[in-house]
Structure formats: structure tokens, C-alpha cells
């Protein structure tokens, strides 16, 4: 890997210092938070992508509100994992792929990079598949809608301004607030919803293999490997400073709360179809079914939110791939750079988006096999990526006391790691050897 003596991106002009003047400490804090805010919300809400929409809606459609408590349990877990990423990104100014390569050597670096690229690309295909599915229900031909979506996703990063990209994506994240309106409109039983959100319980009192694997799928959906790479690179590209750490933590925490809230509303949308007697097949069909009862507005809203989820997931996942590859290869890799100064970085992003969109448009494309591949590969990379993160953050000689893990960080994180290892192994076993897990 080439040496980078400065955290500044090669070729990027030295920024002139300009700021805003405020009069009070609280105004200073608020303005600083607003300036730092972004990566945390984006990484969390982009995780509510097409796959997550399908998983959470399925959970609600099959088990009602019984799995809401699991989302609440995942909130601190996802925060703790991403908080480590933020700390490492701010401390080093480097992305996760670059850190693995530097500290663990070429073999582990290449393994992490290649696995990330493959699983990310396959996930992009599933995102565009969801866009095609949703557009089809809105009588928009996928041959028109998918290329348009791909073009928009490419345009969103080409401005040569990190801030412009971030603002657009934050707006897309906030559009997911519509899920709250949809959940409210579908009128779930409030008491039952709150009770099942706070009290762990098992649907119909039985723990079946199918339920276990839905739980594993929910966990795997909520904590995804690309998030580790994305947020660290995003924090590095935004050049967050040591003093920004507490605001970045707050950004990450609020993002975690937001994404769990939206995920819960997705479950409630699925639950509505259960209450109305519909059989769940996919989120787009659910939107059509609910629309017959609750009105065309609900139908169109859910379909548009499916597209929004897929768009969010695509831009974040594509950037995590482009950033990771650029870091390891030593290419200029910043959204602050125009295309001509970072052709490899932007080229990789565009190639991934275009190729994924093209595959979805191929008649008879093996989408089920691709979804299977995503599950297995994500199960392979996630535990290893988190172990690297944990090891990097225990290097006190390098990071110092301020950024290294505390003892309670380590207790919590190792517990999370062990649980994720076991769940990933179980999911892998279930996918490759389902005959070992008879369903009831």
C-alpha cells in the first residue's frame, strides 16, 4: 500500500477555513452536531434496504407483533458495533479495508476486500430486483424504471461534493418517516404493540426452526458487513476530527433509533396483512393487498418506499465497495473529488450499479441463487470483519487510551461477536444443509 503522509486526499486543494459565528455554547453545540450529522443516520437507515423491508414485513406478516422486542434488543447492539467503527475512523482517518490490510497483512486484507466486493455486488442485484418488482406493481416497465434508477444513483455521487451527496441521501433517509404514517394508518393494537416490543415472547408459545431462522435473518439484516466498511470510510471522507467524536456517537445513536423505529413500522405493516387475512408472498404484493382495504395511497406509498429503500441501500453499498477498493489500491477515493481526479473510484461505483441493474433485466436471471449467495457470503464476512474491528480497537499502543476499547466495551463486544458467530454458523448450516433443520 502506498504511503499517505497526510489525511488529505492527494490532489484535493487545501481547504480554506471558513466557519459560522455563534453567540452561545448551546448554539455552538447544536451547529457542530448539525455539521457532523450524517454518516450515522445514513449507515443505519440504508440498512433498511430492500432485503430488510422484505424480512421485517415477513416477520410481521407471519408472527404479528411478537418479534418487535428483538428489534429493541438489536438497537444497542447495532449502536455498539457502529460506535467502534466511528472511533476507529476518526482516530486514524482511514477506512476499514485499509486498516485490515495494514495491520493484518495482505492475505486477510485481500480476503476481506474480495468477500466484501462479491457480497456487495450480489446485494446490489437484489436491490435492483426489488426496484423492478415495485415498479412493476406501479405499471412501470422495469426496462424503463431500472435504468432510470441506475442513472439517478450514478448522478447522485457525481457532483464532486461530499456535502451535496450527503444532503440528498439524508433527505432519502428521512422519507422513510412515511413508514410511521403507514403504521399509524393501519391501526395496530397499541397495547399489544407496546407489550410485545418491551417483553420478549415467542409467537404461539412455540420455538420452531422456521422462527429461529427468521430471528437469525432479522439479526443478519440489522447488522450487515458493509456497514462496518461504509461508516468508517464515510467518517474518513468527511474528515471528522477527534473533537467530533461525541457528536458522531450521537449521530450514530439517533440513526440506530431511527432505523429500529422504521423497522418496527415495517413489521406493523406486515402484521396488518396478517390481521386482514392475506397470505404474505413479497412486499410488493402486500402493498397491493393492503391497498385494496386501506386505499390506493397505502399501496403506492409502500411501493415507493420499497424503491426508496433499495436506492438508499444501493448508494451506500456501492460506495462502501468503491471506498474499500480505492483505499487498498491507493487510488484517490473521495466524494470531494471530481470524476476526472478519481476515475477509478467513480468508475468502480458506476460499474457496480450498471452491472447489477443489467443483470436484473436479463430474463430468467437466477435471482433466488443470488439471494442465497448473499446470505452465505454475508454470514462468512460479518464475524471476521467484527473480529478485526475488535482487535484493532484493543491496540492501545497505537490508539491510546482515548480511542482504544475500555473493559466494558470489550465485554459487550466479545459477547456480540460470539453470538454473531453462532448465529452466522446456524444460518450457513440452514442455507447449505436445510435437511438438517426440519420445519414444522
Amino acid at each position: 500500500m502506498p504511503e499517505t503522509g497526510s489525511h488529505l486526499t492527494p490532489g484535493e486543494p487545501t481547504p480554506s477555513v471558513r466557519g459560522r459565528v455563534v453567540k452561545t455554547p448551546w448554539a455552538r453545540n447544536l451547529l457542530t452536531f448539525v455539521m457532523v450529522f450524517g454518516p450515522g443516520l445514513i449507515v443505519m437507515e440504508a440498512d433498511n434496504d430492500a432485503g430488510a423491508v422484505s424480512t421485517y414485513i415477513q416477520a410481521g406478516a407471519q408472527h404479528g407483533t411478537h418479534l418487535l422486542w428483538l428489534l429493541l434488543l438489536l438497537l444497542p447492539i447495532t449502536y455498539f458495533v457502529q460506535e467502534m467503527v466511528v472511533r476507529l475512523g476518526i482516530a486514524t482517518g482511514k477506512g476499514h479495508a485499509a486498516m485490515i490490510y495494514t495491520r493484518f497483512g495482505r492475505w486477510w486484507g485481500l480476503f476481506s476486500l474480495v468477500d466484501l466486493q462479491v457480497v456487495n455486488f450480489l446485494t446490489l442485484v437484489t436491490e435492483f430486483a426489488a426496484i423492478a418488482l415495485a415498479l412493476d406493481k406501479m405499471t412501470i416497465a422495469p426496462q424503463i424504471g431500472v435504468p432510470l434508477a441506475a442513472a439517478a444513483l450514478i448522478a447522485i455521487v457525481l457532483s464532486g461534493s461530499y456535502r451535496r451527496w450527503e444532503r440528498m441521501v439524508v433527505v432519502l433517509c428521512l422519507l422513510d418517516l412515511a413508514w410511521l404514517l403507514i403504521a399509524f394508518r393501519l391501526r395496530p393494537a397499541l397495547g399489544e404493540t407496546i407489550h410485545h416490543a418491551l417483553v420478549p415472547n415467542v409467537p404461539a408459545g412455540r420455538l420452531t426452526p422456521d422462527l429461529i431462522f427468521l430471528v437469525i435473518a432479522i439479526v443478519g439484516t440489522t447488522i450487515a458487513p458493509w456497514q462496518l466498511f461504509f461508516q468508517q470510510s464515510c467518517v474518513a471522507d468527511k474528515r471528522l476530527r477527534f473533537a467530533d467524536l461525541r457528536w458522531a456517537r450521537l449521530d450514530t445513536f439517533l440513526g440506530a433509533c431511527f432505523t429500529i423505529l422504521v423497522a418496527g413500522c415495517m413489521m406493523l405493516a406486515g402484521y396488518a396483512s396478517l390481521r386482514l387475512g392475506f397470505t404474505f408472498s413479497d412486499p410488493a404484493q402486500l402493498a397491493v393487498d393492503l391497498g385494496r382495504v386501506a386505499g390506493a395511497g397505502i399501496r403506492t406509498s409502500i411501493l415507493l418506499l420499497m424503491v426508496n429503500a433499495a436506492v438508499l441501500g444501493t448508494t451506500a453499498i456501492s460506495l462502501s465497495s468503491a471506498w474499500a477498493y480505492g483505499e487498498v489500491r491507493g487510488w484517490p477515493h473521495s466524494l470531494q473529488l471530481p470524476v476526472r481526479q478519481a476515475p477509478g473510484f467513480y468508475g468502480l461505483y458506476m460499474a457496480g450499479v450498471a452491472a447489477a441493474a443489467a443483470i436484473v433485466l436479463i430474463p430468467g436471471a437466477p435471482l433466488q441463487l443470488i439471494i442465497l449467495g448473499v446470505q452465505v457470503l454475508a454470514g462468512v464476512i460479518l464475524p471476521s470483519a467484527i473480529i478485526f474491528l475488535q482487535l484493532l480497537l484493543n491496540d492501545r499502543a497505537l490508539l491510546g487510551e482515548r480511542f482504544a476499547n475500555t473493559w466494558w466495551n470489550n465485554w459487550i463486544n466479545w459477547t456480540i461477536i460470539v453470538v454473531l458467530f453462532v448465529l452466522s454458523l446456524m444460518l450457513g448450516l440452514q442455507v447449505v444443509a436445510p435437511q438438517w433443520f426440519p420445519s414444522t
Partner: protein
Amino acid sequence: MRTRKDTATPHGGPKGHFLVVHPLDDVGEEKIDTENAGPMPMTVSVRLSLLSVRAYLIVMTILVVYHVLELAGLFHHGY
């Protein structure tokens, strides 16, 4: 956040105010030098962790290969 209670702001504003600078507009901050840190020291915990990752990857690879061979019909049972 880079702020200072300035005696004079860039715009010549009054004393006792705060200047808040966006990270992308700020001057570069010297980060922890990882380039010259070299490889991670192989302590016992690091070795054990990497060993567990290797073991996990071997098990997952065996599972995937088994599944592929089963799909190819090389085993007597199938599904």
C-alpha cells in the same frame, strides 16, 4: 469541533463569540499514524482470535462445498 472563543472572528465580529467550522472546511488534523505501525503484534488473544476466524471460515467453506456437491448429485441423498 474546532471552536475558539475568539478575540476577533474572521469577519471582525465581537469578542466572546464562537467560530464553528465544518470538518470539510477545516485545516487538516494530524491523525494517528497507522502506516508506520506495521503489522498487529501477535499477542495470545490476537492469535486465538485469528485462529477462531480461520476455523470458522474452514467450517463455512466445507459446508458450501458439501452443498454444491450435493446439488451436483454426488451424494446418494438429495433434496
